[in-house]
């Protein structure tokens, strides 16, 4: 970028909101993948108009622009792979309107996920998508990655809650997509296309999100199993009994040991797997469903299946599940969190395959995740400072993806493709579909200035 470009940016957003100093650029060069790409300039945007002016100008001058939320992404989406402008959206963090009758909330894109939920709580409402990163991540980032969470099985993912949005196109136009209604079929559903587009089709500036009434009651259960296969079978059986739990999380033996090392809460280190299950709804339904869960677990040889009897006990269960990734992160210096997702009926095969791969390459892998969604997080534990490890990691990931696709699954359930999974796209997506995606990208962004270098669209 040239001096005159920087000057122009300063004209648009003000002197203080633009920096080209290396100290700043370094801190905007990473996300939670820990990959690093230095942008040429970092810009703090305050409103839609500024973003529109920036994109208009960048499009004319052919300067790459990469939108960034809280940089908790796990696929490198907000990294300025081609340099240029790194556009920070977190200052756009106002909650604009809450409408408890229409069950809608209007927010700016930089609002932190948890804030959405907190701000509607007093109305007896909640915002269901709850990614593990919800205390830091932004709604813009959640929309761009179509983030999921622990409640996905019953409540779905971000996509299911985005009614509409304001978007700035790569060419600078400000458009509105979606509706404020429960239904809407006027034209192509570009609103949905934008969800999960990883910041490559437009920059989301505002969003209209839908809300739900808080369930009246909930019950949390913890089931322990000798063998992982029994736990996985329980997952499948609970659903086929007609119980759609709000949470159905699995934690394998490696992860249980890591949690015990970290929290020392008296988990049995020998158990093969545990399930954390939550049912919610009206008290009557909750009681019935909890009973069914217990029966199914017993039928599948659960060592035990206990319901939390107090808020304190429930919090303890959740703390253990939430500590899964943290605990694994303490085992080795580098943790690589994958996101393979298979049909629910194939979970056992996936976990067994992952264990075989772990043995074959002698690389510890802890697996936990949203079993009810078939979405697992095999987590590679390694030290990337050791030269050979990187190559090994590549091979392990390649093999995990190969089985995933073979089992009818997908490379990423919720973390996105970005750069870290771009090279595996062809495992899942046919050349025709890939080509179609490229055309969509070119239609939105003829000069390929918005978040270039992602999903390998331009190579």
């Amino acid at each position, binding site marked *: 970028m040239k001096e005159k470009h920087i000057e122009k940016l300063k004209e648009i957003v003000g002197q203080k909101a633009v920096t080209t100093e290396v*100290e700043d650029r370094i*801190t905007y060069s990473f996300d*939670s993948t820990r990959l690093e790409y230095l942008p040429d300039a970092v810009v703090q945007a305050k409103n839609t108009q500024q973003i529109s002016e920036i994109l208009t100008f960048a499009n004319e001058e052919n300067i790459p622009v990469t939108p960034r939320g809280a*940089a908790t992404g796990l696929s490198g989406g907000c990294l300025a792979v081609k340099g240029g402008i790194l556009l*920070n959206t977190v200052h756009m963090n106002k909650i604009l309107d809450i409408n408890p009758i229409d069950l809608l909330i209007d927010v700016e894109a930089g609002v932190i996920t948890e804030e959405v939920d907190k701000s509607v709580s007093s109305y007896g409402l909640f915002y269901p998508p709850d990614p593990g990163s919800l205390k830091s991540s932004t709604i813009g980032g959640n929309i761009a990655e179509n983030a999921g969470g622990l409640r996905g099985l019953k409540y779905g993912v971000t996509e299911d809650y985005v009614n509409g949005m304001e978007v700035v196109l790569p060419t600078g136009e400000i458009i509105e997509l979606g509706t404020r209604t429960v239904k809407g079929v006027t034209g192509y559903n570009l609103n949905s296309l934008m969800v999960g587009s990883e910041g490559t089709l437009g920059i989301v500036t505002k969003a209209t999100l839908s809300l739900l009434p808080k369930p009246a009651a909930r019950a949390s259960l913890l089931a322990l199993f000798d063998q992982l296969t029994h736990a996985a079978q329980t997952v499948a059986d609970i659903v086929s009994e007609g119980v759609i739990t709000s949470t159905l999380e699995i934690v394998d033996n490696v992860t249980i040991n890591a949690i015990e090392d970290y929290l020392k809460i008296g988990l049995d280190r020998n158990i093969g797997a545990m399930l954390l299950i939550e049912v919610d709804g009206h008290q009557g339904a909750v009681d019935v469903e909890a009973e069914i869960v217990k029966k199914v677990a017993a039928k599948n040889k659960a060592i035990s299946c206990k319901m939390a009897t107090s808020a304190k006990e429930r919090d303890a269960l959740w703390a253990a599940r939430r500590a899964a990734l943290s605990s694994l*992160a303490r085992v080795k210096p580098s943790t690589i969190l994958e996101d393979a997702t298979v049909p629910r009926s194939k979970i056992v095969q996936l976990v067994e395959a992952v264990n075989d791969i772990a043995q074959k390459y002698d690389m510890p892998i802890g697996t936990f995740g949203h079993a009810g969604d078939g979405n697992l997080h095999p987590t590679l534990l390694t030290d990337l400072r050791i030269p050979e490890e990187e190559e090994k990691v590549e091979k392990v990931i390649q093999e995990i993806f190969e089985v995933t696709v073979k089992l009818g699954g997908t490379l990423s359930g919720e973390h996105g493709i970005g750069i870290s999974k771009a090279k595996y796209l062809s495992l899942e997506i046919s050349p025709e579909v890939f080509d179609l995606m490229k055309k969509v990208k070119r239609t939105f962004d003829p000069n390929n200035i918005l978040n270039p270098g992602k999903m390998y669209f331009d190579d």
Partner: protein
Amino acid sequence: MVKDKQKTKISLKKDELFNCSRCGNCLAVCPIYKQELDESVTPRGKLSLLEAVDKGVMDFTNRLSDKIYTCTMCNSCTVECPSGVALKEIFEAARLDLVDSHRYPEILDMLKKRIAEGHNVTFDTNEGRADWVKQIPGAKLEDMIKDSAEVVYFAGCVSSFSPRTFSIPRSIVQLLDQADIDFTLLGDQEWCCGFPLLSSGMEEEAKKLADYNVAKIKEKKAKMLITSCPSCYHTWKHTYARLSTEAVDFEILHISQYLLKILKEGKLSLNPLHMTVTYHDPCDLGRNSDVYEEPREVIQSVPGIQYVELEKNRAQANCCGGGGNLESLDADLAASIALAKAAEIADANVDAVISACQQCERTIGTALKKKKKELKKKIKVWDISELVLKSVQGK
């Protein structure tokens, strides 16, 4: 310039730096990030800069230094970090390196000079260090400075020189009198504990103060040192063993712990106070020294008190903005952190917020005053010693 990269303090923290996964959990709790929304001053942002230096990608610069010092040293990031990175220790090491390479805020030179010449953090000479005693009815300084005593009350610089916080040491000596404790002050013989130097990265200077202060306590043949300042407490309790040449062979208690002890021994009798109060955990007492329960026990032992917790409490407590010398480097930022704290306190709907730190009392007090118009009712800001004295005096 750093003379030798291998010899920097942060190079010893190489593994820790690498352990940060950049997960961003720490953003949610960092008081600086919550105000600035700028990655360049977040906990993980700071780590990325230190890693860049360690890897030789860049050198210590003034700009980098500003970013590292833009921190209240509240330690919230460490508590939140799933990977177990000890961030505050890393930031302390970085500050040592920054001082070594002469890249630190100019204002710290002033601080160093003031402490070296006046033995305290203010512009005043140390002679007036115990002037706060004068306003206590019937009290004479001579009576409070003895040749030897069981307990030394170490008031600390801020409470000794900042009139707004005089009520803390005044309350304490009155309580000690009331409880018939054999105590002494050090008067103008009390020197700064060294905390401001330590947290700025000036360890060598702090060592001299440690040696001096330890010798003074020994002269008094005291069995115990008590202090009302959490930073003094932290420094005495957790760094003097390392800094001081002489062994620290007396007990060190924060006033909240000491009050609990003498209450349990029945040395003070409390009258009811009918009010709803909450407690603010000072960073240096709570997160940094692990003292959470004693202040709560003291408060709740006052009859008639309705006690409520703040939304974020104990290890998760929000910082008031008063730490890490931030106030002298970026007063506006420190003030905005304090305002956020004040808002949390206002939400708790209490009559008073109790703290156990003169710095917190000052910053929170100022912030609540600024918010006066928005508040449903006036909220008092008291130190724990003030609360107990009011209860003892029955008013």
